[in-house]
């Protein structure tokens, strides 16, 4: 009757030791494409590329698996990145006008990226601070000096790597103007320095271009102007021809000019060639131009921009011109920068022969093979634009059998045949990470109805296969991409490149839930309009009609009228399907509300699905709905197939269970679509804001120091109020988090609502809206009827804390065609606290979760203990409870919300391997809460083990997108385009380990080891900052040396630099009403914090960087 559990806290050193070996939290690697990239650089010697982002992150990429990440202490946009070729040094310029030197350091055989020095150009007395704003950075090829061009027109020289200003070398515009003829001078300033280019063969000669149009060839050593090019058109960029005999300049009118370079003391008035490629109508500026010589023929002229302003001013283009051949590469997002890949050393008189053109646009990275005719694209092994259509759900399948793996890869290859034979050109560095021990498949469902298959086994997330479901339905816009079939005569010759296409034809196509059986290659994809597609992998292409079965989830419930969207109309007749997953049956839920849960049992040929109105069970072998309702015995309803419009249509009544509460009116208004439309409108407005903010080019923040002031008020206020909660030991990681939060809040609403936020305290009532939403479905072979006989069962949990358990009569394999599956309602459990049921699992006699179908028969899992005493773990949003089976009585429970004030968002049973002993494998319950913390509990005793902060609680799309893997890793979206991978296991960690061989000219080995004044950020690879677990459960990380993971002891945490860059609602479709409430609450918090800060004005603003 009364339970007494006396538990001494931390009194068991043995258990503590085990905990250590089992649990360790670390954010290991970011998959996908960095959000909001802002700068690009390439090192031709090391063959690595660097991408800088608006959040201040710097990421280096080489060969697949070679990834280094760094994060600036300041949350400022990286505006420029420049490698010191071959040195392993990287200069970054931030929009706060500071320069930072990054160094590739070797530690324990692995390379890391660390910031070593920074430099700010001192202002000139009596001048506006804008005058010393750096516009151009050029490290000279000797790597001893960096030239800085400024807004004021002066060029400064900086010794490398010490970042010491060489004051006597500074070149002021006055000195240049002395050699400029009076008539050109005419009293006007030269304007900002737009470009500095080093002579390809003589490093002492610099080509300096000023905004007004003047280009000067400057001899550094003698301080003499060697050649003046008196251009009159506003200059955008400059490039040398490789021989050094001519230069090319691009201009703001959309034209470019070629100038001949000759001996000393010359003045050239006219270029040898001047053209406006997309003229004659007014064109936009050509922001960057490159000239690459080619052995095989005409040189390449590659430039970005220059499009006719009126007709194509909104296109984002890079043009590649070789002789008469012109390709206008048309991107769907803004071009950030581009470079060509060629051998680093070109002999005098030789040719550059660029192998590839790499273009970074705002949403993806595209490489063009310049050596294959037709210039096809080279598929990138990393930096996949996950968000080419917004991610609506994701699902992870671990231990994928080799057979299925190969079939998926082959389907993917047939889908997108490689046009280019070229290998990925950026292949520097060496991947030291071990070959992944097992194949992990990450599936992402997208807004446009596609499911993408990713190889998530290792550090780089590779696309494998893309499954489209839109072709099965009639949509407004038919799917024959009209853009790709550009007319032959069209001018300019646009060529659509890249795959980022965020615009969905029909939001109803959005994928909500995915289930895949890895042994039978059966898959279920369920979407926004109540469509449930049962698919099967086929290696052959096929043409067949898809059977359609309609399941009325409302049955005979009266008084409900669906006010949401219509169902998607399936296309009639046989449809062609490429090799890959091909649909066999379409089960259409009526009303067509979004599918909220789906599960598949391939051994029993059953698929269960649920919406906000109820759930249904479908036998896809017989293509029959299975009645799942106790009403006068067991009857299987399912009218015979009837031929209708060339489509097999099944209709049924009562083949499901309605979970709708009689008072639930909201459910009929298409609540999920309402949330979606809210999401959509939010997204649109955020896009607008973003657009207006990125309109500028280089000098986005011409008045940088003051440009932030407007938002700083909000940022400081929140930072201040949050800092209250932080201890005094909150160090720099917190600062990054704050900065991130601040960045995110820049997009927030500017108005400050002063009404205090109130929360009503009332218990949940049965007639809360959306109580009928089916939250989880589960199949298990267990004891439902009595303790002697086990059998197939199906479980469903709803939003109002109800659990329905059905006993299934599944005929044996041979009799599938003869006998139908039958279902009888066995039990109905109403959790008293009425919180939504998030997950259900059955544990066997030994407390292990039941294996997946076929896992035992294929010898991939131990057979479960079927000797009885099964138990059932029900996880609601508020508590975890273990019940006995078949008599349902509570065994243990843990009331998370009552104790911690947090609610369960995601749970998973994970098995964690110990670092201590090989055999120790513990099954645990991992839980992500609405506060972004991850808690781990033992199973079935439900004792809390450790908890870690993982995601910022304001980042609701991050929390909503989280998926756990079977072996204690996980993924969540830190931006619409990036998954952060994390690990809860001390043993199973997937993190980048790589080495870049650096041969420095000046041996200043590892600057960071010298006693630098710069305090180092405790980070391993930027966002990979293992947080030390909070609370008394934290295991001290004694197995790893502090050198290895310096941040493991950091008392506080940082989040990914990108986590807050996007508006938080932009990505995942799996957003519940609760989460929107959270979002509203968190924005409310901002208001509150503002209010608090205004109450307490004495708080210094400096607390922001506390």
């Amino acid at each position, binding site marked *: 009757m009364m339970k007494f559990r006396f538990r001494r806290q931390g009194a068991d050193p043995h258990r503590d030791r085990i905990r250590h070996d089992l649990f360790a939290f670390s954010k290991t690697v970011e998959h996908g494409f960095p959000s909001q990239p802002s700068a690009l650089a390439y090192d031709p010697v090391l063959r690595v590329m660097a991408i800088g982002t608006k959040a201040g992150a710097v990421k280096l990429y080489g060969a697949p698996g070679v990834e280094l990440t760094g994060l600036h202490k300041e949350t400022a946009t990286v505006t420029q990145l420049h490698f010191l070729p071959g040195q392993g040094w990287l200069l970054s310029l931030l929009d706060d006008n500071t320069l930072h030197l990054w160094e590739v350091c070797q530690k324990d055989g692995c390379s890391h990226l660390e910031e070593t020095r920074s430099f700010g150009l001192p202002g000139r007395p009596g001048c506006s601070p804008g005058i010393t704003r750096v516009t151009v950075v050029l490290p000279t090829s000797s790597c001893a000096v960096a030239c800085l061009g400024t807004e004021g027109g002066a060029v400064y020289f900086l010794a490398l790597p010490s970042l010491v200003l060489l004051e006597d070398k500074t070149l002021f515009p006055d000195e240049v103007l002395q050699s400029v003829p009076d008539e050109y001078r005419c009293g006007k300033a030269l304007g900002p320095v737009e470009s500095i280019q080093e002579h390809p063969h003589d490093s002492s000669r610099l080509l300096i271009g000023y905004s007004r149009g003047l280009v000067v060839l400057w001899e550094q050593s003698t301080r003499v102007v060697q050649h003046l090019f008196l251009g009159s058109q506003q200059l955008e960029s400059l490039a040398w021809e490789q021989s050094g005999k001519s230069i090319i300049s691009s201009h703001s009118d959309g034209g470019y000019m070629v100038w001949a370079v000759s001996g000393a003391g010359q003045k050239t008035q006219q270029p040898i060639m001047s053209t406006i490629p997309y003229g004659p109508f007014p064109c936009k500026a050509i922001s960057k131009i490159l000239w690459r010589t080619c052995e095989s023929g005409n040189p390449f002229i590659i430039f970005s921009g220059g499009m006719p302003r009126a007709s194509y001013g909104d296109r984002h283009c890079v043009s590649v011109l070789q002789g008469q051949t012109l390709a206008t590469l048309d991107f769907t997002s803004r071009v950030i920068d581009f470079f060509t890949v060629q051998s680093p050393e070109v002999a005098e008189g030789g040719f550059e022969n660029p192998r590839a053109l790499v273009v970074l646009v705002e949403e993806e990275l595209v490489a063009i093979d310049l050596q294959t005719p037709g210039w096809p694209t080279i598929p990138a092994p990393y930096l996949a634009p996950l968000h080419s259509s917004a991610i609506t759900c994701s699902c992870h399948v671990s231990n994928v059998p080799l057979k299925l793996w190969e079939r998926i890869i082959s389907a993917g290859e047939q889908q997108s045949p490689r046009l280019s034979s070229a290998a990925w050109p950026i292949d520097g560095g060496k991947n030291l990470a071990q070959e992944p021990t097992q194949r992990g498949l990450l599936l992402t469902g997208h807004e446009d109805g596609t499911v993408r298959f990713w190889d998530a086994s290792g550090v780089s997330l590779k696309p494998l296969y893309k499954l489209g479901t839109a072709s099965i339905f009639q949509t407004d816009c038919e799917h024959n991409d009209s853009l790709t079939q550009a007319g032959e005569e069209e001018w300019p010759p646009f060529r659509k490149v890249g795959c980022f296409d965020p615009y969905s034809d029909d939001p109803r196509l959005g994928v909500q839930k995915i289930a895949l059986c890895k042994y039978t290659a059966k898959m279920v994809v369920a979407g926004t309009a109540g469509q449930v597609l049962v698919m099967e992998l086929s290696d052959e292409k096929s043409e067949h009609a898809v059977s359609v079965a309609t399941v009325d989830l409302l049955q005979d419930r009266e008084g409900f009228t669906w006010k949401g969207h219509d169902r998607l109309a399936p296309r009639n007749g046989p449809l062609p399907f490429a090799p890959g997953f091909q649909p066999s049956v379409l089960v259409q839920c009526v009303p067509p509300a979004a599918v909220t849960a789906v599960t598949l049992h391939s051994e029993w040929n059953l698929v269960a699905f649920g919406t906000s109105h109820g759930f249904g069970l479908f036998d896809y072998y017989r293509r029959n709905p299975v009645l799942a309702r106790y009403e006068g015995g067991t009857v299987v309803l399912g009218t015979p197939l009837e031929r209708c419009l060339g489509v097999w249509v099944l209709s049924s009544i009562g083949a499901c269970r309605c979970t709708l509460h009689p008072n639930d009116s909201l459910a009929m208004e298409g609540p999920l679509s309402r949330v979606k439309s809210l999401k959509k409108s939010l997204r649109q407005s955020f896009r607008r804001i973003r657009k207006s903010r990125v309109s500028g080019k280089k000098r986005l923040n011409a008045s940088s120091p003051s440009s932030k002031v407007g938002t700083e008020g909000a940022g400081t206020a929140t930072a201040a109020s949050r800092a209250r909660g932080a201890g005094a030991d909150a160090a720099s990681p917190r600062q990054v988090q704050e900065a991130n939060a601040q960045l995110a809040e820049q997009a927030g609403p500017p108005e400050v609502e002063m009404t205090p*936020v109130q929360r009503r305290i009332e218990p949940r009532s049965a007639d809360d809206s959306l109580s009928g939403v089916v939250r989880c479905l589960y199949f298990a072979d267990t004891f439902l009827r009595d303790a002697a006989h086990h059998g197939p069962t199906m479980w469903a949990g709803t939003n109002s804390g109800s659990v329905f358990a059905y006993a299934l009569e599944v005929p044996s394999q041979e009799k599938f065609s003869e006998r139908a599956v039958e279902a009888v309602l*066995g*039990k109905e459990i109403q959790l008293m606290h009425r919180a939504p049921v998030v997950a259900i699992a059955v544990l066997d006699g030994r407390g292990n979760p039941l294996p997946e179908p076929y896992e035992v028969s294929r010898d991939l899992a131990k057979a479960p203990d079927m000797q009885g005493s099964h138990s059932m773990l029900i996880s609601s949003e508020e508590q975890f*409870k273990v019940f006995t089976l078949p008599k349902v009585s509570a065994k243990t429970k843990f009331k998370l919300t*009552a*104790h911690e004030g947090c609610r369960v968002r995601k749970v998973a049973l994970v098995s964690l391997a110990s670092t201590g002993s090989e055999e120790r494998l513990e099954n645990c319950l991992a839980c992500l809460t609405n506060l972004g913390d991850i808690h781990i509990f033992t199973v079935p005793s439900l004792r809390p083990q450790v908890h870690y902060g993982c995601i910022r609680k304001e980042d609701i799309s991050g929390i909503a997108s989280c998926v756990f893997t079977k072996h204690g890793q996980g993924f969540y979206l830190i931006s619409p385009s990036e998954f952060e991978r994390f690990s809860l296991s001390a043993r199973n960690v997937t993190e980048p380990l790589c080495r870049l061989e650096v041969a420095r000219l000046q041996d200043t080995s590892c600057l960071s080891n010298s006693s630098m004044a710069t305090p180092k950020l405790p980070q391993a690879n930027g966002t990979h900052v293992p947080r030390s677990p909070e609370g008394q459960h934290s295991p001290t990380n004694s197995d790893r040396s502090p050198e290895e993971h310096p941040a493991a002891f950091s008392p506080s945490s940082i989040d990914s630099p990108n986590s807050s860059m996007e508006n938080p609602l932009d990505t995942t479709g799996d957003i519940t009403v609760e989460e929107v409430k959270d979002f509203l609450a968190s924005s409310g*918090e901002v208001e509150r914090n503002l209010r608090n800060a205004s109450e307490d004005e004495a708080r210094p603003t400096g607390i922001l960087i506390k």
Partner: protein
Amino acid sequence: MVGEVQVMNSSLLVLYNLSYEFGAEFRRFSLDRYQPGKFEDFYKLILHIHHIANLEVMIGYADVHGDLLPINNDDNFLKAVSSANLLLRVFIQRQDEVDYSNFGTNTLSRKKKALVTLRNDNLRRRPHINISMPHDFRPVSSIIDVDILPETHRRVRLYRHGCEKPLGFYIRDGTSVRVTPHGLEKVPGIFISRMVPGGLAESTGLLAVNDEVLEVNGIEVAGKTLDQVTDMMIANSHNLIITVKPANQRNNIIRSSRMSGSSGQSTDSTASHHSLPTSHVLQNFHPDEMESDEEADIVIEGGLEPQHIPKLHSLTSSSLSRINGSSLSHRLQRDLALNNNSGRESNGNIHKLLSSLKTDPRHSLVIPRGGIEEDGTVITL
């Protein structure tokens, strides 16, 4: 089992009485409303009337709120009689079948009641005594732990005794001033912002607007966000214990008279019985040990094997007699659980049932003798 006693002016009238054997017997006798005599006598009388003198029975009655309360001493006997409005409904159960959890309000959910009995070993092992058994009393919202809390603080237990009243209050963020070694310091805090008229919080008068919330069920709220505190309160809403620092410090309890003071604000004097032992409990309160089955989940067995599971949907008098070996109170509970398809809490149901039993002299007076048996079964369902 169920009987009705009518109180008319100064005499008590027993109209009829259903014995534990489900037969109906009617007895009338008079008692002085204001001096009904001793419980012992009444008990003997009942046993005598029904010819069950050899049985140990528990007598209960339905009070004006519709709650099932026991009659087992002179005090509650007097209270039962004097508070009865014309008709007093009496329940008789065999002592060995008495499910004490049936008494009180949240009848189904209160198997383990106050933290007191849960934790205090001495108290737990002590055999049930007839006087002042905690479970004989209806738990009410009260002030608890007066002896261990600073005088400026107040610990309040809000008990929704099966009523439809909402808890009825709102909380907000705010700042409070604390005295620290460094002087006065402003710290963020959670405050009660609003009362819902007619809600439990308002009607008990235990909480007031601008009271600062310090703890929820023994867990400090410092450092927690408004949303976290909201979730904690909702998750504990079936038995919410809030420690507050009242905005109005003038009504503070004065130590010397704390025993009487503790009930000063509460609606029932039983609070004083709770306050002392509970205080010790909450002192060492560990959330993990707050294991109570107060929120037993309802399990409804499906019709998998009808031969094992009695068909309780359609209980008729014949089926009642078939299984009359089992206690009616048990069946009553089970039936309620089974009738719970609508998702209503069963304690709500029993409460409804009890209130439907509310005295209606006209009704009971016109009941034909022969129809009573059927009426009885209808009532139990």
